[in-house]
């Protein structure tokens, strides 16, 4: 089983290692123009998109989740306890961005990298966009949270994702992604690894506004499970909302069942069941600066 884990990790990390090779072959490739903006925001609710701003652009991202939607007395979750992430991303090239963010839950500090391996072209010679995304999170809470035999590596968690997207029409873009999540230190009955798939989309309703959705499914794969029965298996997450993107901003407001702002914890620990009414208001705002 350990071998299988290593194999899966390598398989999902492969696109990140392939960055250099892809750059070399690009010169020889005949240039077809990429389609115009299949997505206009770096995230679609709880998932990454294939969007990377143009080279030398700094992107500031504010992600927020309010408390659980209950009733008017908690103003539908707005008075509830919230989670927030502040992050910055920098596009080194048109296809590569790196970033750092800090999140209230777990005082998580995350470093991330995103790379567009393939771009969908207008002539359809390349019918899809393919993007690799990876992050490493550092849980920055006090040592006492990690129990006995504390080591720094207990704090680390990882998320790797391959995203396939297609802009079907001027107004409709859909993406499907496969992900691998790993948390170094978990409770004795919990899993360290999880493979997941996600479906997300953007349906444009005007030049600036779109309806967006995201659905994430953590998969129970016996082959990589450490325990025969799963304790508190993660629930599927669902979100739907509204996006407005302008020249230098992107704004999303939505309801979602995921409150974690790091995808590895959403895939591995989300206990909110959207079918049971565990829904939360949230928003994402970005600001771009070009240099």
């Amino acid at each position: 089983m350990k071998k299988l884990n290593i194999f899966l990790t390598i398989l999902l990390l492969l696109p990140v290692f392939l960055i250099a090779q892809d750059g070399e072959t690009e010169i020889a490739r005949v240039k077809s123009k990429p389609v115009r903006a299949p997505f206009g925001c770096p995230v679609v609710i709880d998932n990454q998109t294939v969007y990377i701003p143009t080279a030398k652009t700094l992107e500031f991202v504010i992600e927020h989740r309010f408390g659980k939607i209950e009733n008017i007395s908690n103003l539908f979750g707005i008075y509830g306890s919230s989670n927030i992430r502040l992050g910055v991303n920098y596009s080194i090239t048109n296809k590569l961005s790196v970033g750092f963010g800090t999140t209230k839950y777990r005082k998580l500090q995350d470093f991330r990298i995103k790379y567009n391996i393939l771009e969908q072209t207008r002539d359809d010679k390349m019918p899809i966009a393919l993007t690799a995304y990876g992050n490493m999170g550092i849980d920055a809470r006090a040592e006492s949270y990690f129990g006995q035999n504390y080591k720094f590596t207990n704090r680390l968690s990882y998320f790797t994702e391959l995203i396939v997207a297609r802009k079907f029409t001027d107004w409709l873009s859909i993406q499907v992604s496969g992900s691998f999540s790993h948390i170094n230190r978990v409770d004795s009955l919990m899993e360290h690894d999880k493979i997941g798939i996600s479906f997300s989309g953007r349906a444009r309703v005007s030049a600036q506004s779109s309806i967006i959705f995201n659905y994430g499914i953590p998969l129970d794969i016996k082959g990589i499970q450490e325990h025969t029965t799963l304790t508190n298996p993660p629930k599927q997450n669902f979100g739907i909302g509204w996006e407005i993107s302008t020249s230098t901003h992107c704004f999303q407001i939505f309801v979602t069942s995921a409150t974690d702002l790091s995808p590895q914890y959403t895939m591995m620990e989300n206990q909110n069941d959207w079918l049971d009414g565990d829904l939360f208001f949230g928003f994402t705002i970005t600001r771009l600066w070009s240099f």
Partner: protein
Amino acid sequence: MNMKTRSINKIIGIAAVLFFAMAFMAFITPQDQKKGGPWEIPSKYAKMENPYAGDTDLIKIGKMLYSKHCKSCHGNKGLGDGPKAKQLETFPGNFATETFQGGTDGEIYYKSIIGRDEMPNYEKKITDDEDRWAIINYLRTLK
């Protein structure tokens, strides 16, 4: 009415006057928004040919891009009345006028993409040349 109640009423009264005065000021718009002077356009741009001139397919793309990048200041119909226009020191111009439409495509390209002062540079935000000309083709429909 005792002294204490009178002085509280006085404070409330002053606070109410100040509040309404401040609220009223929000409706005051600056009257001294200046008109932009004539543009100095390098001849390289003024003489530029629009490779997509007459390409009506691009108008739809141009309209989308205009909505995303330009509308907030220049307004729905390019009259210079977008929601952010009043915050500008300089009137952002009326695209329906003869003065604007009389310019060459290259001149409009320079004004739109290169910019000056409060009109930002869009070279890094609209990187594809076809997209830039699509906006110019759309601006031509705002006569």
